[in-house]
């Protein structure tokens, strides 16, 4: 398959991923399934309900990669190497990730930050508009999003990383507003015409409350 211009999306936090996947993103055709490296076979992975990462081909030369929530930070390099063939010829790569607001560092006295906000980092050769403020020092991003952005910087592929800081671990219509706004600004269709809130959310590590039975 030869594509003139490609873009890729990589999503990370299970709750946001699940919500976005089920309710907003029109996923297209899956073309690649990326499994974890290990000694377990498919049946063992299926029994442990390990979800693989998948690359989808959307309309008009766009690839969408949805990362498995079960990937460990130690697998970041290997995972990035596995998806690098698809990134090599990309016109640009867009990376989406989330973090809890407790991980956001400030360096001067200021009022409480909003409940949800977005910041961005980009490679030096990213010439397209960046749709949120720069992530300022001393804040950093780790894991697979960082590995992908590092790979793009190293091999000179234009890329931008958007990180959404949220106060809640649970996702609701308010917390995905920023992503909806971001998706609507991109120059191609990614959102469903009418979000489907009845779809079952993808499984993953649940943060369960111990306050109530």
């Amino acid at each position, binding site marked *: 398959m030869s594509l003139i211009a490609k873009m890729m999306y990589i999503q990370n936090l299970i709750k946001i991923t699940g919500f976005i996947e089920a309710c907003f993103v029109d996923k297209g055709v899956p073309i690649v399934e990326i499994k974890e490296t290990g000694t377990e076979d498919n049946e063992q992975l299926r029994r442990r309900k390990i979800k693989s990462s998948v690359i989808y081909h959307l309309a008009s030369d766009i690839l969408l990669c949805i990362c498995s929530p079960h990937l460990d930070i130690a697998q970041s390099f*290997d995972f990035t190497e596995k998806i690098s063939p698809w990134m090599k010829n990309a016109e640009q790569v867009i990376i989406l990730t989330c973090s809890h607001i407790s991980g956001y560092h400030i360096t001067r006295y200021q009022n409480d930050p909003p409940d949800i906000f977005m910041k961005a*980092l980009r490679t030096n050769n990213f010439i397209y508009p960046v749709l949120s403020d*720069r*992530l300022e020092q001393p804040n*950093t991003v*780790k894991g697979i*999003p960082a590995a992908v952005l590092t790979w793009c910087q190293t091999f000179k592929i234009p890329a931008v990383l958007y990180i959404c800081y949220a106060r809640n671990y649970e996702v609701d219509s308010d917390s995905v507003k920023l992503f909806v706004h971001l998706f609507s600004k991109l120059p191609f269709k990614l959102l469903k015409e009418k979000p489907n809130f009845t779809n079952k959310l993808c499984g993953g590590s649940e943060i369960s409350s111990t306050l109530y039975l």
Partner: protein
Amino acid sequence: MIHLQESVNFKGCILIFPSVSVGNAGQLAVDLLITKMNPRKIGLIWHSAIMPMVGGDPYSSSETALTTSGELFYSEQWKMVIFQIRSPIMQEKSQDFVDRLIEWIKENSIDKIVILTGISDYMRNDSEIVGPSVKSVVSPTFAEKCEALKRLVENQTSDPQTQSVILYDASQEPKKISMHGGGISWKLFNACNVGGVAALVLMKYCSDGDNIPDAVKLCTYLNTLLNLVPFDCDWESPPSWTGMFGNPPQLGLY
């Protein structure tokens, strides 16, 4: 592994390498060196041993340049290549990283390497506690090229516990110099010795906490050996060190 963004002739250069170690002393010292000497960024490191991390420019609050977890800087003035590593090195992949680094050093005819590291101060015995807080382990090939080191070796005591400079080469009985908490310092120094690369490890006894004074001491000691900047200079900290010990309190508290 090392991806250069421009062509540089490294022949005869000295390489500064921070080991990810106790107190991050080596990495903090490199931050001070880079802030003071202002070398230009010339390359990135892409290797499975280095955990990935990205952020804004740590040396300028206004620049938009991206920083990654492994970077190279070069100073033409001091003929110096400086590595900066900003995240942990995975032990199981560190030997491959060290081997490739030695290969790169030899391919580019780099003259010598200085490894900056912190080591655990709680491992000192009584005589080491009263001895110098910065110790160095040096290969004979490095010592020959550094007059300041030669003087230190000549003037120091004969008691190995209180010596500040330990001469060690691959032909000696293989014994491991204690670099507890020093990350890959020993592995890299040993590989340099075996590979015929002149090497020096500068070790600062420290523990985790406010390690800025430890970094300053490492830089001062390095400056004594290499004569980089005026002896009484102030080592300025980079903007990324702001907020090192957590966020200021929220205004809503008052």
